[in-house]
């Protein structure tokens, strides 16, 4: 028996004057964490906005916690905590004012947890927003979302611009919110370490399309770098798995996706020797994916 889905996007497309989102399929079950990665302008924030019902798609369907978006967003949003970079707090008001304000709207507000978060995030509730740093503003906004204890957290770049100590506090609190199977997180980040650490699923977005979306263990397991020696200047085997080749003299390093144990043998057959097979970090996978997507674009343009 599988858990109900936290989010289910089916084939969503949206055209903007200078950008389009194409056939986005994205889903993950409740109780898990989905991380979105991709370069600037890939469409991460747009997807999050569509999920939140802030933008309606041209085609496709979206269900969030079982509610169809944007039509049933009122019911859905009761259980979603959304934080985006461009969210503003009232400059001339204190954190306490904002806490009371959110508490008056959402009956799920947890006073004790809010106090704990103030302490963990090192915030003074009587301070006015005006005098707060970027990091303090981000933390205050996260606090307002977390203390509602929503079933789904949707965070757009929650750790951008935070120092390592605060970043850790934020990640810790994100994980703490997953105490049971009904709590889920969808977040985007440029910090690949954050995504690699806490995500159960990873979706890689490039140019408005989803390049890969799968569970993190398979995602990370699929990529390998082979270090090869090419003594006789042999031709590399023509494998669709090959995403990047760096060759200098007799040394050659090849990055592959969808790795399996037969791949080194295929290089041996082609006359090359495999000296090592290495795993990649998410950062390296990110770069390889961008590079290979760009190369495909170029190929497409020249055809």
């Amino acid at each position, binding site marked *: 028996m599988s858990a109900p889905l936290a989010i289910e996007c089916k084939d969503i497309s949206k055209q903007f004057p200078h950008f389009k989102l194409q056939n986005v399929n994205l889903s993950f079950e409740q*109780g*898990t*964490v989905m991380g979105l990665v991709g370069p600037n302008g890939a469409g991460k924030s747009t997807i999050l906005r569509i999920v939140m019902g802030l933008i309606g798609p041209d085609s496709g369907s979206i269900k969030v916690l079982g509610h169809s978006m944007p039509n049933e967003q009122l019911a859905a949003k009761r259980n979603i905590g959304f934080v985006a970079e461009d969210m503003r707090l009232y400059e001339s008001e204190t954190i306490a004012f904002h806490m009371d304000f959110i508490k008056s709207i959402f009956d799920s507000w947890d006073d004790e947890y809010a106090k704990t978060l103030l302490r963990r995030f090192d915030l003074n509730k009587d301070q006015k927003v005006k005098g707060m740093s970027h990091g303090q503003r981000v933390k205050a906004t996260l606090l307002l979302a977390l203390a509602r204890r929503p079933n789904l957290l949707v965070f757009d770049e929650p750790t951008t611009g935070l120092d390592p100590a605060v970043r850790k506090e934020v*990640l*810790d609190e994100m*994980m*703490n919110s*997953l*105490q*049971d*199977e009904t709590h889920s997180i969808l977040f985007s980040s440029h910090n690949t370490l954050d995504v690699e*650490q*806490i*995500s*159960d*699923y990873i979706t890689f977005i490039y140019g408005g399309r989803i390049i890969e979306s799968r*569970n*993190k*263990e398979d995602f*990370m397991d699929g990529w390998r770098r082979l270090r090869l020696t090419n003594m006789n200047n042999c031709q590399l085997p023509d494998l669709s798995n090959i995403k990047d080749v760096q060759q200098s003299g007799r040394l050659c390093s090849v990055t592959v996706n969808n790795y399996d144990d037969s791949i*080194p043998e295929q290089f*041996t057959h082609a006359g090359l*020797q*495999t*000296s*090592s097979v290495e*795993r990649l970090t998410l950062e390296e996978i990110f770069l390889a994916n961008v590079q290979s997507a760009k190369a495909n674009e170029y190929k497409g343009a020249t055809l």
Partner: protein
Amino acid sequence: MKFGFVFSQTDTRPMYQQIMEQITQRIAVGDWPPGTPLPSIRELAVETKVSIITVKRAYLELEREGVILTQQGKGSWVSESLDLMALQREELIQHLQQAGKLAKSLAIPEDELLQMLRKYI
């Protein structure tokens, strides 16, 4: 931290292997004797701030190696019939397999490999 798991960012092994190691170490030093119930996957994930799917993978691999037992709905516990020596032996065999494979890909002859090994005994 309740379980005191400490991970290293400079450790290049995948995280699930680091979790496996932390668990087998606790078993090896006797902190978690046979029969000890393990934390639930979600509990350990929240505690260590590592994704649920990674902790799940560590548990699956440990189960496959016979270090822990898992029963649906009851959770996991340290195997009663765990033979630590056999476990460590298995680990050594895996290292040797790796070395053998590497030697073959480097075209190092058998007797030379054995000589190399002798140096470290």
